[in-house]
């Protein structure tokens, strides 16, 4: 079994060589950091991930979270308590939070690296931490001073847990159909909530003395649809203004899901206000709830991409070690049946599978860390134009991070299992669990289908296409840079051609939309997202190749790493990028079979 979890060298390349994280320390907000401290943080996270979180990976699945119908209590596996304690003692819950609320103000791109480690080691466990941090972030951004004072520090410190409660039985993808209600109380500053939320991650557990639920609900008389949804803070136990935890707040766990994966994380159905006594406090303005929630959701979508990529990274590290050790068959040229069998990494088909995984995990981590670094720029660049540009880029790339991140990672783990042969199918090895765990990522935080609609229906067209064009402009810059490097010219040409083709087909689709066939336009969403993702990953690989080539020319050492990077980039551009052109063709052909296919014909 491999204990490597992730490629640490690649993480350092992305942070220090590609994104120049050190440069962030010139901003006041990050001035307390230096490269040395980043190194120590990465070191500490990796150690914790490997020594505390990873050894419990199987137990989280085997034991799983449990619900006792008699007592109504939800429990996490025993190992989870130790992990929680370690996270808490280490201050990891407040990693990126501002110092004034007890956080550590770590740049988000460095936190992307620690998140990769923690999730690779035990993603279901890490979700409890992410839940608390997400709720804290919402209150910090939009809450009243009292709410901030009562909740924020406790959540970041891991004293209390947190969730996000959007989904209802009739409102999954369709959040406009949320029907939980919140009625202003006559005797106080709170509202009384009623309704049922389902599929709530970390929705109930025995890790903390309280759990804080941000809940989407409607105030009677609010407009129909998304414009009538408000956001409330609903604690499991009521809390006094002094922070003291009091009586139950009429939030009742009806049960937890029995799931394909991430079984250690309790996915709860919660009933609010069965007795009419569930108090919630409005966050920000009425009817703006969904917009607030999207701040968290956008963040969580990148987090979902990271969760998926982390599992794929760990699976790849396992496959790499396994294929070096497993001897089977001989080279095609070896005719002597008595000669020893060779490690399967020597077979080209196995190398193809390994390279697919290497390209997927490295390409996705580059994307996710880059997205996180845009968040850092948004937060602290003194230049307003730069901040706005970062926001635009991030808006366009978020659905790519979430959807392509989760989909390509799942496929990558399939390849890792294939490398193991029959042993990969056996639960004896951790890969089967990784595959099961990874399946949720294309589903939650908005299904990948919804992400595709978001990309084509909103992000591509927002600001008259300016945000989308900003991405293509960045790509051109990298192409220009790479064209100046002799050995990368052919790769630059490929990326430029892909970018042009995507620009072209986007204009073509816009024509369809403008012509009024919006159904046809939107039916292109999923293939479009996949196509655009391939362009984005190819661009990032071209960027990385330029750096790797320069490092090789400068004889900076680490030759194997840089040559491996160039080879991986080339592999992706030669084998994955060409699919983009097939999609372009399909979309240009006006493919509409699925649209026109009569339901009766199924």
């Amino acid at each position, binding site marked *: 079994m491999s*204990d*490597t979890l992730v490629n*640490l*060298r690649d993480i350092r390349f992305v942070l220090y060589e590609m994104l120049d994280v050190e440069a962030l320390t010139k901003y006041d907000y990050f001035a*307390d950091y*230096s490269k*040395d*401290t980043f*190194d*120590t*943080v990465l*070191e*500490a996270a990796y*150690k*914790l991930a*490997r*020594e*505390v979180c990873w050894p419990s990976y199987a137990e989280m699945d085997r034991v799983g979270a449990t619900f006792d119908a008699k007592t109504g209590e939800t429990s996490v596996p025993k190992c989870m308590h130790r992990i929680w304690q*370690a996270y808490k*003692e*280490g*201050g*990891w819950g*407040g*990693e990126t939070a501002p110092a004034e609320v007890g956080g*550590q103000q*770590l740049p988000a791109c460095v936190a992307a690296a620690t998140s990769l480690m923690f999730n690779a080691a035990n993603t279901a466990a890490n979700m409890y931490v992410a839940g608390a941090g997400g709720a804290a972030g919402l209150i910090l951004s939009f809450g009243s001073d009292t709410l901030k004072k009562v909740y924020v520090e406790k959540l970041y410190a891991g004293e209390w847990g947190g969730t996000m409660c959007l989904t209802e039985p009739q409102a999954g993808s369709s959040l406009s159909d949320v029907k939980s209600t919140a009625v202003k109380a006559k005797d106080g500053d709170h509202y009384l909530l009623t309704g049922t939320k389902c599929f709530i991650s970390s929705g109930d557990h025995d890790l903390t003395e309280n759990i804080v639920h941000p809940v989407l609900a409607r105030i009677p008389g609010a407009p129909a649809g998304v414009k009538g949804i408000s956001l409330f803070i609903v604690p499991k136990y009521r809390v006094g203004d002094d922070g003291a935890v009091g009586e139950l707040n009429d939030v009742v766990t009806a049960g937890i899901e029995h799931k394909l994966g991430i079984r250690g994380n309790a996915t709860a159905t919660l009933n609010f206000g069965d007795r009419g006594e569930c108090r919630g406090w409005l966050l920000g303005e009425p009817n703006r709830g969904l917009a607030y929630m999207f701040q968290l959701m956008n963040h969580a979508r990148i987090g979902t991409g990271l969760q998926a990529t982390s599992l794929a990274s760990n699976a790849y590290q396992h496959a790499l070690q396994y294929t070096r050790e497993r001897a089977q068959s001989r080279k095609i040229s070896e005719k002597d049946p008595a000669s020893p069998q060779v490690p399967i990494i020597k077979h080209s088909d196995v190398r193809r599978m390994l390279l697919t995984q290497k390209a997927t995990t490295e390409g996705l981590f580059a994307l996710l860390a880059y997205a996180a670094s845009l968040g850092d720029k948004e937060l602290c660049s003194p230049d307003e134009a730069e901040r706005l540009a970062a926001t635009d880029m991030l808006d366009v790339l978020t659905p790519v991070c979430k959807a392509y991140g989760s989909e390509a990672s799942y496929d990558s783990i399939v390849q890792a299992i294939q490398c193991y042969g029959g042993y990969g199918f056996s639960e004896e090895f951790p890969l089967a669990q990784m595959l099961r765990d990874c399946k949720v990522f294309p589903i939650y935080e908005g299904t990948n289908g919804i992400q595709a609609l978001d990309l084509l229906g909103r992000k591509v067209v927002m600001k008259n296409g300016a945000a989308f064009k900003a991405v293509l402009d960045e790509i051109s810059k990298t192409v220009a840079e790479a064209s100046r490097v002799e050995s990368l010219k052919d790769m630059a040409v490929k990326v430029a051609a892909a970018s042009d083709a995507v620009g072209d087909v986007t204009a073509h689709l816009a024509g369809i939309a403008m012509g009024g066939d919006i159904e046809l336009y939107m039916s292109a969403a999923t293939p479009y997202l996949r196509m655009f993702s391939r362009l984005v990953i190819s661009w990032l690989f071209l960027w990385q190749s330029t750096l790797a080539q320069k490092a090789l020319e400068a004889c900076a*050492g*680490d030759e*194997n*790493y840089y040559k491996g990077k160039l080879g991986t980039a080339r592999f992706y551009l030669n084998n994955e990028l060409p699919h983009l052109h097939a999609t372009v063709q399909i979309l240009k052909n006006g493919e509409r079979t699925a649209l026109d296919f009569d339901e009766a014909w199924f």
Partner: protein
Amino acid sequence: MKILVTVKRVPDPESSIKVNPEGTGIVESGLKWVVNPFDEIAIEEALRIKEAQGDVEVVVVSVGVSESQEQLRTGLAMGADRAILVKADRPDTAAVAKILVKLVEKEQPTLVILGKQAIDDDSNEVGQMLAHLLGWPQATFISKLTFAGDKASVECIREVDGGMETIAFALPAIITADLRLNEPRYASLPGIMKARKKPMEEIDAASLGVDLTPRVRIKKMAPPPARTAGRKVESVDELINALQTEAKVM
């Protein structure tokens, strides 16, 4: 009271170690480096003494390449108060012990805690040599440390072949930590941020006036022979025969 704790930079025990083609050492590029695990236990013990007794300064010391700063920083992040790096190019155990003598003379600690051995070359010598050079009492391989009421002496349980040995002796003294002494804490994020402001002194070994000439020369390094595949035998007799004539273990 002051406690000096030694910290050695060693390859991550999980990394796969390769001998270089010249057979003179291991391939170091691409390796991940960590604090020697026994030294982590030593740091933890010093921190627990500090937490129990209050007025204690914990100083972590490393002898080696400048990159050993990373490991010292981990020690500071765990909670040590300051760090000293003595820069020296591949000193052998005797040279390290002599360098440490100089630091002990300068720092005047009450206790020096070392890991019982470093997991890179497993020499298990520095603590003993240091005690000898200083003429101090030593307790090696300890799994428990208790201070006497007047704090002038300690009682230690040592892990020895076939059992435990309890010894008591006066301070100052040298102690080397075994695996069961404690479970070291993890560096916390606030700890890491605090560590930034803690002093780290750098000293050139050459300036200490000790003879660094290696007494040990590595003539050749080779990986252990690869394990050959097992074989099934038909009967007990055949097994005994194979153990006697082939494996020659009976």
